[in-house]
């Protein structure tokens, strides 16, 4: 006889033993994002230049991650977005983010004349992407 074990937590109004997966708050049958590290910082990027922040994770594989940063060239700072873009040689001040087996790389481009400061928040998860 094969027995199955696990934990299910249903949303209010649903029976955890019969609820569809969409109506569960948690099920040990499905993996979740598990936070490894998070942090914040700033980087000043000179005009017509780029700057890269390197964050060591040393996980030995490429982990899932999310990064939010503001764009000081927007009319109002303090707006944080996960949006990335790369218009090479364009006039856009945008970030992009990458990882390898040891580090997270956050690169910020400043096509303007004046130095600007970017603020970023990163979240690295134990979950392996590659």
């Amino acid at each position: 006889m094969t027995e199955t074990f696990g934990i299910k937590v249903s949303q209010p109004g649903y029976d955890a033993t019969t609820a569809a997966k969409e109506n569960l708050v948690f099920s040990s049958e499905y993996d979740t994002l598990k936070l490894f590290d998070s942090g914040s910082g700033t980087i000043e990027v000179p005009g017509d230049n780029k700057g890269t922040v390197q964050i060591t994770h040393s996980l030995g594989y490429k982990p899932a991650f999310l990064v939010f940063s503001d764009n000081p060239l927007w009319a109002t700072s303090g707006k944080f977005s996960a949006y990335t873009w790369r218009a090479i040689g364009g006039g856009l001040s945008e970030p992009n983010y990458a990882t390898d087996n040891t580090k997270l790389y956050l690169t910020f481009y400043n096509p303007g004349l004046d130095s600007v400061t970017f603020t970023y928040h990163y979240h690295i998860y134990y979950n392996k992407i590659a």
Partner: protein
Amino acid sequence: MTFGARVSQPGYDATTAAVKDLTFDSDANSLKIWKAGSVNISVSEANGGAGTGYVEVSHGLDYPPFFLTYFKLKDANKIWFQKSLDDSQLPATYINTTSYANNTNLVMEITVNGTLGAFTAIGYYIIFIDEAYQT
């Protein structure tokens, strides 16, 4: 009488901690991974114009799910978050990687401009059971 389970972060009392200081709270939904994997994306030659490639990943959920995507040039070492790729290895004048989900598929696509040959990239995805939006 209320029932539930709470697990707190180190240094917090699970019975009194704020939800933000819990690692699990049965009263708060958790993102649940439905499917994760990778696909090859063949991008056509860009002969002074646009090279494009896209792949559909069937998810079978009947609604647009929450997802995360990353892209990597096939022989590169770094993976890139959503809308970028390594421009130090790709001599394009414009690179755009886009992902979106509908009721049946997660679509991952790449557009490059410039003069460069066809190439292959790898799209990595995590699709969650949770809907991208709540109606």
